[in-house]
């Protein structure tokens, strides 16, 4: 038992003090290393975001240029078919055929006005065909993707719906695919990249508001003046009203 200015300090207390000091030191070191890593990361994120901005601008200008070129030569420029879709469920859950119910579950559209991104391929297109009366979908543009992910982006972390308030949340889950910040995520979604599946699955289905200004007619297809089915680029306008 050590003597401390006349008082006897029990050994257990001394041991605990020493251990607490060790822990404090270890923690400080850990914090310092984390801070360094974070600042290095920040630079990287900044540069990536800059590159992406350039890339998007370049893409836009390229499209315009190709169109002008074609027009000049007297021909037409046809846009390549979209790779990315955004689907919104517009019908409720009652009185549904079990197969379509299952397909909507597989698409993660379990609630009305839920939205998900989707890659376009034969499989998904056929699935969409089956559930057409219950959803509306189209090709989102950069602004749509950005706004959706910034405003209503939530990630699936440990099976929980966690808000994307920090890049560390994204890095934690998608770091191994090279996606470390929200801009990376947006880029991966927009240009359906090699890890689209993981990135998209990480995003919890978007819970959108009912559209300001209303829908036209849920029960009809878009081409009939209603809302269901493929509305191609006009999905962006709907997203503006629902986000």
């Amino acid at each position, binding site marked *: 038992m050590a003597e401390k200015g006349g008082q006897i300090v029990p050994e257990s207390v001394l041991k605990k003090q020493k251990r607490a000091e060790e822990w404090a030191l*270890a923690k400080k070191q850990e914090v310092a290393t984390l801070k360094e890593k974070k600042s290095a990361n920040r630079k990287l994120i900044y540069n990536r975001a800059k590159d992406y901005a350039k890339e998007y601008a370049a893409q836009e200008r390229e499209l315009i240029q190709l169109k002008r070129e074609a027009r000049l030569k007297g021909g037409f420029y046809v846009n390549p078919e979209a790779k990315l879709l955004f689907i919104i469920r517009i019908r409720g859950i009652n009185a549904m055929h079990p197969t379509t119910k299952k397909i909507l579950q597989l698409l993660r559209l379990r609630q009305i006005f839920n939205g998900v991104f989707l890659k376009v391929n034969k499989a998904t297109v056929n699935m969409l065909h089956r559930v057409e009366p219950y959803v509306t979908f189209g090709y989102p543009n950069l602004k749509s993707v950005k706004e959706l992910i910034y405003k209503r982006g939530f990630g699936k972390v440990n099976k929980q719906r966690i808000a994307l308030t920090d890049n560390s949340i994204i890095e934690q889950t998608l770091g191994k695919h090279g996606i470390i910040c929200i801009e990376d995520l947006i880029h991966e979604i927009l240009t359906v990249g090699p890890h689209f599946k993981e990135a998209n699955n990480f995003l919890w289905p978007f819970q959108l508001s009912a559209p300001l200004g209303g829908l036209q007619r849920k029960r009809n297809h878009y081409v009939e003046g209603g809302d269901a089915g493929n509305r191609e680029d006009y999905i962006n306008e709907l997203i503006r009203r629902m986000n």
Partner: protein
Amino acid sequence: MSAAAARPLVTVQSLESDMATDGAAANSVPLPDVMRAAIRPDIVTFVHGQISKNARQPYAVSNRAGHQTSAESWGTGRAVSRIPRVAGGGTHRAGQGAFGNMCRGGRMFAPTKIWRRWHRQVNVTQKRHAVVSAIAASAVPSLVLARGHKIEEVPELPLVVSDAAEAVEKTSAALKVLKQIGAHPDAEKAKDSQAIRAGKGKARNRRYVSRKGPLVVYGNEGAKLVKAFRNIPGVEIAHVSRLNLLKLAPGGHLGRFVIWTKYAFEKLDSIYGTFDKVSEKKNGYVLPRAKMINADLARIINSDEVQSVVKPIKKEVKKAPLKKNPLKNLNVMLKLNPYAKAAKRMALLAEAQRVKAKQDKLDKKRKPITKIITYFCCLSMHLRFWVYLYFIGSLLLVSQSRASLMQPGWKLPCPVYLSHSVICLLQEEASAINSASKSWYKTMISDSDYTEFENFTKWLGASQ
């Protein structure tokens, strides 16, 4: 657990009488293993509850009670209920309801029977474990105090008294013994607490109640101390080999104050055995093992073995921050995307530039030629003519090199010389009008369908 030598020693309290002959200091006896057995209040409560049912006498109501009438129901149609009614007449009893539990003078619901199961069977081992627990509890001062015994003046628990106590014959001597060993306050407490029972029991041969005092346990059969101690209120006696749970844990509560004689105390080991040795007197009985050998949780937790591998305490629990919209809140946006600030700044600048450029372009196209006209109006008729000539001339020369226009000394065939500034003004206006007309010509061409004329001809198949 440990060898006999490692067992703690209990000092035997000496009485005045014979210890003088020994001449030695107080003897000491090793603590028997019974006192270190696991204390199991759950077993004790259960066993005590069961055992205390075994001394019950059956009670029941009379077999025939309520049925000693020949009552029969009057049936319906007589404006009375259908309960069986006493037959006959001439007395109050006639026509009264009978038999039912609801009737006055009727038999009770479910008349109590004597063949109710009054007694309970308990496994022998369980009974033994209960007694062992109770004995162990009697060695713990806090439990004994909690049970309510006055042991403040008792020198040691378990309290062992020399064998001289077994030879005590007179009650007065017994009281003296109790006083010597500090057990008198407990006995006194019992005496003071004698009171008439509350409730019907007082009329049922259970008139008085009092607290329990010490339990004196002796080892020799036929010891005189039984007769000496038995009349002291509160004090009870028991032989070691016949310890009763109902006395060791009265009311199912552990911690009776027990006074052992030395002989009895030494016998405990053979009666109950040790943790390793089987009991001699109870066939095949071994003391019960505790669930945890070391039940001191605080000590275990604070031990080196545990503390050395324990992780640091998490004092700050991270709470999820409220999500703020990055599209509206700039700081949150910057947290997510540090490039956003630069992008926004560039966008703003570009917008400002675009606006300015457009405005300039429009201004150029729409600017009216007001200066010359006002000046023109101030001149006299004569001068106006020459200025007009000069003006037209400069217009005609605009397609040629600008250099010629820069010469203010282009002379008029007129004696009037226009001032330098006027000439410059005229030249500026001229160039402005020229450029305006040029751009107008261009838009005229592009707005027309002339550019698509080639396509048109292709459709027609006509050649130009």
